[in-house]
């Protein structure tokens, strides 16, 4: 009897499970039917240029697919606004997309001057409204900043480097066997940098190889308030260094601001501004490499994104020992022209001005001229790859090209990504790896 009850119970459970499953399946099914009844409008904007860069007239095709069982009527339009929102170019067409069909609408934007332009495509039809926002560029290599670098820019940085050179580095290297993996040895290193501040970083090197071997070095530079860890990976050819500049990661002994306050720390004095020291921490990292007998000082690549990109550019502009540079979306380019274009760091700078009586935004800009990415560019003497996202809200393409165009042309390489913001795709990093291996003869 009990056995039969058990059997019945199992059957009931199975039935319940099946019912639940069927109900779910029916629910899914009815949802699909319902959706099919309702339909949808799907849009796709196709730029007639792989990277969104045009010579004179930008052009697009706006694809509209209507899966409704009813016709969709209305307008498809575009507008190219100024930074203040005023339209400088616009057009619209009356559309009728028959039920269960697709239509394409092509637009050629009037010729524009060199620069980057936002463009919004709008669709307003019977059952659907949407806006697609993009950016296009016209002959960006003709973009020039209207702000020049300070006349004493080079002497300011030479003085700074001299001050760094006067600080004994006191390198300290500690092996960290507990962190080993991927057949790599891991070392924590620390050193004294500008103003006697201690900064730390990580070195990983492949195990094995001859004792006389000198490894090429990849240096990873940190983004804003990012703590870099030891960088691993199965690679027998490369030493990898990650450095935490002052006030970041494990280099916060003296400077340990709140996250938002770091960018403005001591900005009112260009000789005390936090990024002056951070840049020197990067120079000291190159000193460290040159002091290691197993690292090849003639094959150093520096790479970073965002603030890491900024540091990479600044380092390349100040230190000719760097042989390859990869800067992804470097921030702080053409700083005076960031106002009105980006919120960060402009809003924080303005907040800083308000909090400090006697300070003015203009005076801070005068100081920041010494830290403007574009102002390091003319001094770069190593091949550099720059990654730019057209939708970047922190390192806008107009500002990026104001910097890029000042790099001596024989060293400059750029990749532009029309659908990306403050990032680069995996393919950029893959190409970076191949580029570095080719340049360093790591075939």
């Amino acid at each position, binding site marked *: 009897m009990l056995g039969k009850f058990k059997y019945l119970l199992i059957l009931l459970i199975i039935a319940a499970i099946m019912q639940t499953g069927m109900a779910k399946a029916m629910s899914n099914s009815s949802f699909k039917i319902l959706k099919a009844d309702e339909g949808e409008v799907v849009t796709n904007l196709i730029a007639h240029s792989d990277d969104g860069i045009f010579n004179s007239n930008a052009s697009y095709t706006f694809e509209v697919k209507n899966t409704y069982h009813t016709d969709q009527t209305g307008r498809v339009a575009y507008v190219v606004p100024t930074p203040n929102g005023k339209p400088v170019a616009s057009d619209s067409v009356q559309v009728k997309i028959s039920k269960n069909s697709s239509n394409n609408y092509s637009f050629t934007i009037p010729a524009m001057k060199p620069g980057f332009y936002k463009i919004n495509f709008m669709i307003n039809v019977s059952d659907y409204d949407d806006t697609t926002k993009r950016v296009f560029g016209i002959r960006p290599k003709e973009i020039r900043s209207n702000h020049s670098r300070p006349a004493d820019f080079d002497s300011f940085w030479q003085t700074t480097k001299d001050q760094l050179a006067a600080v004994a580095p006191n390198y300290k290297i500690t092996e960290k066997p507990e962190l080993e993996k991927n057949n790599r040895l891991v070392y924590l290193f620390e050193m004294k940098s500008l103003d006697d501040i201690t900064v730390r970083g990580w070195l990983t090197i492949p195990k094995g190889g001859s004792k006389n071997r000198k490894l090429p070095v990849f240096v990873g530079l940190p*983004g804003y308030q990012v703590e870099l860890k030891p960088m691993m990976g199965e*690679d027998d050819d490369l030493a990898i260094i990650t450095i935490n500049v002052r006030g970041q990661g494990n280099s916060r002994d003296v400077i340990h601001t709140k996250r938002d306050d770091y960018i403005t720390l001591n900005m009112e004095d260009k000789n005390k501004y936090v990024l002056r020291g951070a840049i020197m921490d990067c120079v000291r990292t190159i000193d460290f490499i040159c002091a290691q007998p197993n690292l090849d000082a003639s094959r150093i690549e520096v790479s970073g*994104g965002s*603030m890491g990109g900024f540091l990479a550019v600044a380092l390349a502009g100040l230190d000719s020992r760097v042989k390859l540079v990869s800067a992804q979306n470097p921030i702080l380019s053409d700083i005076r022209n960031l106002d009105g274009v980006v919120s960060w760091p402009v809003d924080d700078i303005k907040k800083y001005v308000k909090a400090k009586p006697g300070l003015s935004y203009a005076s801070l800009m005068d100081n920041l001229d010494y830290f403007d990415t574009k102002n390091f560019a003319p001094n770069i003497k190593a091949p550099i790859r720059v990654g730019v996202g057209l939708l970047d809200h922190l390192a806008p393409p107009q500002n990026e090209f104001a910097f890029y165009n000042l790099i001596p042309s024989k060293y400059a390489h750029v990749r532009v990504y029309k659908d990306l913001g403050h990032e680069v795709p995996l393919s950029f*990093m893959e190409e970076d*790896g191949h580029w570095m291996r080719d340049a360093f003869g790591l*075939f």
Partner: protein
Amino acid sequence: MILKNTLIKYTFIVIILLTAMQNKGYATGGFPVRPGRLTLSPSVSYFFANKQFDANSHRGAFPENGRFSSLGTSLYAEYGLSRRFSLSALIPYVSNTYKDNTATYLNSGFGDAEIGIRYYLANISYKYYFSLQATAILPMYTNLNLGYNQKGGELRLAFAGSGHLFGRNSYFVLENGVREYFGYESVFQDRYNATYGITLDKKFREQVSVSVGGFYVSSDNKSFSPNPNTAKNFAFNQVSISYGHSFSKKVALFLTGGTFITGRNTGAGSSVSASLNYHIDTR
């Protein structure tokens, strides 16, 4: 608030892709050589022919039940001088036998040594590589049954690439070299080869490749010889298949078999060979 979140999201941690060109270890051909890398490749090969292609490219038996065989050993070395230049050397030793119903002819000795310098011309997207090699040919014998006994020179253009096909790593090498032997009845040779290889595992330990190649050789002397090293006017095309096994990142063994598919005024032979590939990095 949105800004801060976005900022956190996008303040980059550095990414690095470690893209070792492991698949190219198998195929030195047109790929650049790492500076300081010394590659040593001893090999042994056996060529056998009991048929011939006549002057009209017709295949037939040798007269008097003749058959030609050649057992060869060689040492190939290559050294990366710099990112652009590499130096190579080849020293062969051969033992040729021709037997028929009437006699046996045996000749042994060193062959033509080759010393070359290769220049890495360019690449396309770090996937396709062009190189140009100049080679000096120096006879190490006086016996004319081992070769022309003439100095020569060769220019070879190579195009090589790697990529993915059917989910596997693959590579190709296309090479064409024009060679001239200087002196009496000077011989012109065009040596060409196309190789396609594919790795069989993700660790690049096993690979198989197929090749199509051949010689086109011309001179005023049109007499027949079953030995391609001594004949002065002939042509052939051959196909071959090669299997490679990598014992470590530094040592690999290749086993190759091939056969002539068309020819003119030469033996119709087949060959097998084994070669070891060992490299050390001196820098």
